[in-house]
């Protein structure tokens, strides 16, 4: 009778989940009941077997270093910049901030949205490069890469001819921003990789980008510096282009120009 009462509790017993009162009573029962004691033994053995068998996979040192490096880099980029800004501009910045908040809160909100888009893109750039498979279509030929996107994203775009430039196309993949599909292309310049993201301009909320909705090509944005990456964006034929990379602003600018002239 006592065995029936305890049988459903044996898993909780071996998992250390019984409350102290039950634990004491069951302990006493086990000392006198070989049937339940054997059951417990079997459960403990099974638990140990799974424990041993489950510790199976170890990441490569290279992958561990890559993750540790990327975490450290992202953390270092955020607070340090904020801290130095505050130490230099603390008092005047605060007064300007309060004034501008009162007058231009709306503009501020759009700029926050823009910053969020930038840091999201920086994350997409980093995770793609850190991935074992950074691109899904591997080709240096724009005539292979462009058609690959057909049927995968709801728009089409032109890619520039790169002959005579320092840039090489590595390939592309489909990416998502704000639940909307877009194209992610990776270019190489010397030893660096630069990401080009293309989304429909209407993906972005009104006024996130001031030039939103421009029919013709808008002038490129002033290069921005986000999490130690340089970035430039513009709109052209209803599409929003972003160029992101750890190269200097002049390289970002050169690639942006090639893309803008491809139309």
């Amino acid at each position, binding site marked *: 009778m006592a065995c*029936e009462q305890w*049988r*459903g509790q*044996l*898993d*909780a017993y071996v*998992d*250390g*989940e019984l409350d102290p009162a039950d634990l004491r009573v069951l302990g006493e029962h086990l000392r006198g009941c070989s*049937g339940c004691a*054997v*059951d417990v*033994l*079997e*459960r*403990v*053995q*099974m*638990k140990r*077997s*799974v*424990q*041993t*068998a*489950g*510790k*199976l*996979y*170890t*990441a490569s040192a290279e*992958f*561990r270093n*890559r*993750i*540790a490096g*990327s*975490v*450290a880099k*992202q*953390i270092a980029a*955020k*607070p340090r910049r904020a801290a130095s800004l505050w130490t230099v501009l603390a008092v005047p910045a605060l007064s300007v901030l309060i004034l501008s908040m009162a007058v231009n809160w709306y503009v501020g909100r759009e700029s926050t949205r823009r910053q969020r888009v930038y*840091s999201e893109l920086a*994350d997409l750039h*980093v*995770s793609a490069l*850190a*991935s*074992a*498979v950074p691109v899904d279509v591997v080709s240096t030929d724009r005539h292979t890469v462009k058609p690959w996107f057909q049927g995968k994203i709801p728009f089409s775009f032109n890619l520039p001819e790169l002959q005579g430039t320092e840039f090489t196309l590595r390939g592309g993949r489909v990416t998502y921003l704000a639940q909307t599909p877009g194209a992610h292309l990776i270019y190489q310049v010397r030893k660096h990789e630069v990401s080009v993201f293309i989304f429909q301009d209407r993906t972005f909320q009104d006024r996130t980008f001031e030039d939103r909705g421009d029919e013709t090509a808008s002038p490129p944005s002033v290069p921005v510096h986000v999490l130690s990456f340089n970035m430039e964006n513009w709109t052209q034929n209803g599409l929003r282009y972003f160029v992101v990379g750890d190269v200097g602003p002049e390289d970002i600018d050169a690639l942006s120009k090639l893309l803008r002239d491809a139309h």
Partner: protein
Amino acid sequence: MKVPEERVSAARFEELAMPLFDQLYNFARWLTQDTAEAEDLVQETYTKALRGFSSFQAGTNFRAWMYRILRNSFLSSRTGLKTMVAIDGEADESILPAETATPETILIGQADRETVQQALEDLPVPYREILLLCEVEEMSYQEIAETLAIPLGTVMSRLFRARKALRDLLCKKSAGGRHGV
């Protein structure tokens, strides 16, 4: 791993998250059954966790939070969508009467490491993951409930069913082995 109640700074993320790297990778590898996918999953987990760290509630369980991000990312991946099948009888939280140990089940408990690994691989993902969280990660029922976002009663019944499914698989393997001789 309880985090003190004060607001946790971003720099603290590294201190909390990096020691979990090996176990997160092992778990990701068991879920995906593929090295490249596991690496992508771990990478995505760290990126998302770092980005969302300001929303992490200090004082709650950081380990369960990290595992939940990893698991949610897996669920939305192509492999995750394919493999995360619903488990029959999941709604029933009652725990069936346990089977009594026999000399055969005791031998099964001593099955060699490779056989157990193979059986774990053959289990449906919901059973495999709960066994790994309980036995390998040594999570409490409460932590498992937080990680999988299921009630405590479901943790107990799913764990019970997972163990039974594993025992049945090992039984079959051991019977197959004997017939083969």
